[in-house]
């Protein structure tokens, strides 16, 4: 089978149309980024995040109501994976001090319910943990396990068999778990993951991500400048920049629009951008490679004609290579699960715009430079 075998389209003459198309998409995307903003994941924002999987399907509105009651302020609630999973997130790092007495009384109620009338002493209390001492090691052991089952993170003070102390963590995730296990008695759940990221880490990561993307663009600029002519390298990098901006714009436009698609900027989305930069340059390289070959063969022909010829000749391989990669990305989008979805989506959009831009932006840019400066590019 052969697709696009004798393709002969004058792509370069239509370039203004594509400038307009690109500009409109970019503009809509940028407006959305400015107005709606990009939603950053916990990696960049910091905070606490818990993913919980229930046994039976749950009503998300009910979960929201429950979460509002436990005094943690603004907690985001989303579905995670399927109809039984939820993701809870808050920007808080610790339980606010006005809720702590509530948490403590809950812990003490559990202790009281387990072993009524038991003697206990608070020997240490901080903003993130509380330490109890009991009369004998056996009691400490029982309470330790009971509180752990109730959703709290607990530890014995020492591993010695004579230990009588139990430390209970007062964490946001624990408080949520405890409330849920009480509220949804008939629908047991299982904690899938729990993340807590300090604000400083997120801030640094943002800087690092921008540096990494910029660095990769510069590396490509240098490499292609060395392999081709500088105008070509610049065209390619502008095309890549265009791809990233469009993908980012789509993340802003589509955030919360498609159910089940969690479009927030996480570390893996940044990884997708970097992969995109490295991969989407491939099409451009193939076109440029052919342009260079054409220019060597037909020195007298105008650049525009050589470019058209090169694009038409390489069209089928450009589309097929992107198609095979898109196949695997679609597989990741469908089968990869919640964790990989944002990553796969960024790649999916980026690959498509990457192919488009390698034809209509990268080559067109080189042509514009050549026309404007009236220089003849020669290899």
């Amino acid at each position, binding site marked *: *089978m*052969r697709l696009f075998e004798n393709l002969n389209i004058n792509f370069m003459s239509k370039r203004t149309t594509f400038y307009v198309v690109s500009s409109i998409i970019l503009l809509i995307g940028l407006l959305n980024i400015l107005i709606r903003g990009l939603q950053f994941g916990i990696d960049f924002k910091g905070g606490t995040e818990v*993913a919980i*999987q229930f046994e039976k399907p749950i009503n998300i509105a009910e979960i929201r109501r429950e979460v509002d009651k436990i005094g943690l302020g603004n907690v985001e609630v989303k579905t995670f*994976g399927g109809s039984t999973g939820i993701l809870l997130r808050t920007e808080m790092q610790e339980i606010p001090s006005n809720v702590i007495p509530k948490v403590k009384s809950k812990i003490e109620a559990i202790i009281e319910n387990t072993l009524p009338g038991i003697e206990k002493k608070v020997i240490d209390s901080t903003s993130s943990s509380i330490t109890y001492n009991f009369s004998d090691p056996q009691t400490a052991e029982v309470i330790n*396990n009971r509180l*752990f*089952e109730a959703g709290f*993170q*607990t*530890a*014995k003070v020492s591993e010695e068999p004579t230990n009588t102390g139990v430390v209970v*963590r007062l964490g946001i995730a624990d408080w949520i778990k405890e409330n849920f296990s009480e509220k949804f008695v008939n629908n047991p759940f*299982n904690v*899938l*993951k*729990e*993340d*807590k*990221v*300090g*604000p*400083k880490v997120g*801030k640094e990561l943002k*800087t*690092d991500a921008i*540096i*990494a993307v910029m660095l*990769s663009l510069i*590396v*490509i600029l240098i490499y292609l400048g060395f392999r081709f002519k500088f105008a070509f390298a610049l065209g390619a990098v502008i095309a890549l920049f265009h791809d990233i901006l469009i993908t980012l714009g789509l993340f802003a436009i589509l955030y919360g629009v498609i159910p089940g698609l969690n479009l927030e900027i996480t*570390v*893996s989305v940044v*990884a997708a951008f*970097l*992969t995109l*930069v*490295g*991969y989407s*340059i*491939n099409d451009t*390289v*193939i076109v440029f*490679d052919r342009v260079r070959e054409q220019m060597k063969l037909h020195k007298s022909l105008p650049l525009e004609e050589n470019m058209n010829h090169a694009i038409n*000749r390489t069209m*089928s*391989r450009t589309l*097929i*290579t992107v198609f*095979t*990669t898109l*196949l*695997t990305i679609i*597989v*990741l989008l469908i*089968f*990869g*699960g919640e*964790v990989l979805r944002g990553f*796969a989506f960024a790649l999916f959009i980026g690959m498509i715009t990457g192919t488009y831009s390698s034809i209509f932006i990268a080559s067109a840019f080189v042509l514009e430079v050549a026309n404007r400066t009236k220089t003849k590019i020669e290899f």
Partner: protein
Amino acid sequence: MKEIRFRLFLVLGAIALSVYLLIPTYKDYLNNKKVTQQLSFLEDSLKKSNPNLPAIQIKEFINNKRDSILSNNPDYRAAREKRVKLGLDLQGGMYLVMEVNTAKLLEKLAKDPDDQFNQILKEAENESRLSNENVVSILARKLKEKGIRLSRYFGTIREDDDKIISRLLEQEADAVTRAIEIIRNRVDQYGVSEPNIQKQGSRRIVIELPGIAREEEAKRLLQGRALLEFKLVKDPEFAIPIMKRIDEVLAASLKGDSLTGDTTKTVKADTSKQQNLTEEQFAKEHPFFAIARLIDPQGRIPDAFVKESDRQKLNAYLERPEVKKVIPDNVEFLYDAKPESGPDGVKYYRLYMLNKTPELTGGVIIDAKSNIDPTTSAPIVTMQMNSEGAREWARITGSNIGKRCAIVLDGVVYSAPVIQSKIPSGNSQISGIPNLDEAKLLEIVLKAGALPAPVDIIEQRSVGPSLGQDSIKQGSNSVLFGYLLVALFMAFYYKKAGTIADFGLIVTVLLILGVLAGFQATLTLPGIAGIVLTMGMAVDANVIIYERIREELKTGKTDRAAVDAGFKNSLSAILDSNITTFFTGIILYQFGSGPIQGFALTLMIGILTSLFSALVLVRIIFDYMVSKGYKINVG
């Protein structure tokens, strides 16, 4: 034909090597399955016999049991050590990033800190939370603004600020090293299998603890203050008779056990089967000495060597009530921190019998320094104590000359030097250290007592085992469906040439896994995504080559000429495009952590192996077909 042969050897060699490297992974998978199945019976019976026991406790017990079986049986262990490791996101566990709290460290280091200093330090600490600047440099700047010299609080009066700053930064880096050593030591004791502890940047530590459910427990372990103690080692005249008593009591009670039998018997039988008869008999009669072999058979040194794999067994023996009865109350057994390798490559730990009550604790140490002795040019470590410690130390050393005094950090012995003479000033020198690295380690350990390394947890992530299981399933489905889709398309579009590319793709995936196993790299979910993506990208090289061959055939070239020209003319485009992707892979590896690095790694390995497949393997098949006169069919 001749030139094909060499390349064919290359390809077959690479495939064979990959398969060889993947055998342990497969074996480990089978072992895991087997042990899990064995333990499921135990789990059921435990549930039946103890209906009141919480499910969590049973699960924990079973998990511990499985870990200990898998890591103690030498066969299982060999496979486990060489398998492709799974990342935390696939097997569940805890990921922590800790940072040295420089402000607390500075507070400790400052001489005569006044209110003003504490005030400025607090401001500097708050400011550092929001900026990338280091606390030390912020503090220096703030003091300068107020016209105070740094030397008022740190260093000596003659030193200028720059020198003090660089020294403080050094202290900070030291604290990180110290914290890592303390954490590594504790994680080892906690019995986490395959922990990963790494330094990140200048003041951070990344800790990965697979399969940890009780976070709070692990976290307390990591953050608590390190305990450094000096304990006297027992004399042989005292230690040997006790060891002999333990041996006798143990032999008698084990004989009793084997008659009644217990649930762990099946497991025990497995490990002892390989030993020959006389050894077995020795083990029966002297169960203690069989696994804790005396270093000196004449019994002049009461230390024993214990195989790494026997440690748990010995600990269980020592915990038995009848054994505990014969061990005096004021005595305990402790292991060396680092194992020594025996002639057969087996790791042995030295076991010491020590006084339970420490003579001194590490709080009295002011400083420690590793050095080279100028006269003997052997590595030494010097330590200074404060006046109170020095007084005690003089008494201890004076009355125990010729005895050994062990340096114990968090229950593990780092060194047990012999006391040569009475040390009146508290300035001691430890010699007889095998190399400078060990000396450096001892310095770190001694300082741990004097200067705790305050660390804060700044990032904490935990993945439950069920999410890990789901991810493994999703990952392997993606690999399977990704391959099928790409392979079907290639076979459909390029016919016979397409199926050759599909074969190349299988080899590519095999090689990626082989390389991962060979480098003992960790496979993460993004890593699997990298493999899936690589499959889509790997055929690109084939597509470029095939399209070119088609074009060459169209110009009327013979099959042989078209294949040659096709491969030759597409080489530069293939290399260009793969090199750029490889570059971004390197940048990504630098930028990311954990899972993302896994992705970058598989992406880079994927690029190399797919190039190998497309340019070498597929080429051989084409060359072979051309030489045999088969029709080249590129769709």
